[in-house]
């Protein structure tokens, strides 16, 4: 009876079709187009017809080579040293530019190197900027995901107390979430100003002048860290709220039981609260990871990827190529690589946190 009443092909498709059509056209289609474009030389506007190029775009981004530079030797076979005593090496350029003996190094540039005895080991990349973007993005995610999830949990526990006026505090902690990340980034760009900036002055005051002012965003060793700290500041309230709703599903009788058993605060957290938060924890980790991989506005507003590419990230690179250089295929290739990473990481997280039988 019921099934006959609800059976309606025409009405069903009719009502669902606007949503389905829009998602198909503006999410699913571009998703597959990204894969297609990544195998071509598609540009935003070009007089020449688009060509299929196979995996060339991927090779141009992901190509790596490893090379050992041996010192220059004089006729007697002794290592040539400069006046300061530094070992002299042949120029890397000799190997990477049209050297028929080293076809695998063709066009690559030095990414990083280290000393090993007399030799210098060099890792070369087809696209050093992309490699830096890849490493920075992963660094960002690896730091932000656990730190932000942890801080959000601490805040949620703090806000879950029964105190007068607690909802006011909750509202304040959540506030940065509703403020645009663009606004937040610009504000923090000012706060991070070198020399007489707000943060520098604050830290000097707190340490009674012992603190040396930093050029937070201008120094390659602090730039990414500064952006990480700001991103956590902005996003932590979002996950605090999700933790909080997880906390509120834990039955109060469990806490009462723990209290009767005389368990300490830590024991209560360890054996009552934490097990009750399992599913929330998995969800939060996946959500933060996905959000963190999409990092863009902070970079665009604060550093444009600099200084010295120390804050290059994948979405910014995709934007720079796809939009800035109108290289749709290059931007699409980065998008596909990003998607594959996001997918693998979330599948991995699901597998690691699966119910153990």
């Amino acid at each position, binding site marked *: 009876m019921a099934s006959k009443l609800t059976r*309606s092909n025409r009405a069903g498709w009719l*009502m*669902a079709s606007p949503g389905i059509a829009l998602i198909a056209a503006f999410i699913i289609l571009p998703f597959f187009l990204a894969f297609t474009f990544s195998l071509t030389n598609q540009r935003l506007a070009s007089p020449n017809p688009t060509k299929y190029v196979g995996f060339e775009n991927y090779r141009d981004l992901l190509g790596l080579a490893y090379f050992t530079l041996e010192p220059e030797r004089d006729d007697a076979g002794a290592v040539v040293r400069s006046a300061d005593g530094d070992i002299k090496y042949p120029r890397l350029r000799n190997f990477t530019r049209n050297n028929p003996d080293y076809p695998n190094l063709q066009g690559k540039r030095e990414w990083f190197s280290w000393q090993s005895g007399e030799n210098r080991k060099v890792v070369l990349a087809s696209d050093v900027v992309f490699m830096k973007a890849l490493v920075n993005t992963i660094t960002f995610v690896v730091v932000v995901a656990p730190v932000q999830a942890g801080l959000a949990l601490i805040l949620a526990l703090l806000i879950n107390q029964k105190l007068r006026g607690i909802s006011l505090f909750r*509202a304040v902690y959540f506030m940065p979430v509703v403020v645009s990340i663009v606004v937040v980034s610009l504000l923090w760009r000012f*706060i991070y100003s070198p020399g007489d900036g707000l943060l520098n002055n604050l830290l000097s005051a707190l340490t009674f002048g012992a603190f040396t002012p930093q050029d937070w965003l201008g120094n390659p060793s602090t730039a990414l860290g500064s952006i990480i700290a700001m991103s956590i500041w902005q996003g932590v309230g979002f996950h605090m709220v999700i933790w909080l709703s997880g906390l509120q599903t834990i039955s109060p009788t469990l806490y009462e039981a723990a209290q009767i058993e005389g368990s300490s605060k830590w024991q209560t957290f360890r054996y009552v609260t934490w097990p009750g938060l399992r599913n929330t924890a998995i969800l939060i980790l996946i959500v933060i990871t996905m959000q963190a991989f999409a990092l863009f506005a902070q970079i665009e507003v604060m550093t444009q990827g600099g200084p010295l590419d120390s804050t290059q990230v994948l979405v910014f690179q995709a934007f720079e190529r796809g939009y800035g250089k109108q290289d749709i295929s290059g931007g699409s290739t980065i998008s596909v690589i990003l998607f594959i990473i996001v997918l693998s990481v979330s599948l991995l997280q699901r597998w690691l946190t699966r119910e153990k039988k």
Partner: protein
Amino acid sequence: MMAAVSADNRGLRLATRYAVLLLVAIIFVFPLLFMAMSSLKPDQQLLSDTDSLRAFLPVGDISFNNYFAAFERAPIGVFVFNSVLVTGITVVLTILVCSLAGFAFVFLDWTGRGVVFSILLATLIIPYETIFIPLLLMASQLPWIGTEGIEIGWLNTYRVQIIPFIADGLSIFLFVQFFKDLPRELIEASRVEGASWWFIYRRVVMPLSGPVIATAAILKFLFMYNQYLWPLMVVQAEEIRPVMVGLGYFTDQLNVPWGEVMAYLTIITIPVLAFYLSLQRVFIASVASTGVKG
């Protein structure tokens, strides 16, 4: 004696708790407070005030001059209008389209429903950031029927800022979750009485759906109003620029006029914050409900 000590203790512990809460609150508020206060100060004072607590107080040479200057530098009214228009239309259409789809998934039985729903769930894993580049190419070549017949290209239009964001997996999913918990007998009874599906949707189900409408609307509002990457790519024309992209008028200067920047940031942030603070319970519940999935 004992009671007095423990009461003292309790007072002290309570004070500590509030102190911790307050300290954390200061960390979250200080940049926003700084923004609002700085917007009232001339550039020179704004910069010199950063070495003391004056940075957070409305002291010194206070005026609205930065606001006047900001309005002179950029067509702020136009930007705000565009953002409100784009965000408003998208939110309304999202509610309509996604609730209809959710309704069809939950209450109607049609061929392909299961498969389509699985595909829909799978799209949740696709971040917008990974489809924007191909979408940019699509937007440059899509046709549209305009006043002068068929025109090609969606760049620099309102529609390019609206149409791609009307339907999304999460919004439909929120409606599906909510509709599932409604009593099915209600719908079946209306069916027996001969009500049409459209009538049931409009007169039976939607009036009961206030909470989920609020949730979907708030999430879409935050997403749309704060969008940056997409409008940066597809909107160059000044007349249709949204507020976030309008920031370029201030930051692309050789010497950034920080007072005006703070005024502009305050203009585009305070309405959202006021909206949030007046409905904060609903806002927070909305975000928390995204945690229900999975």
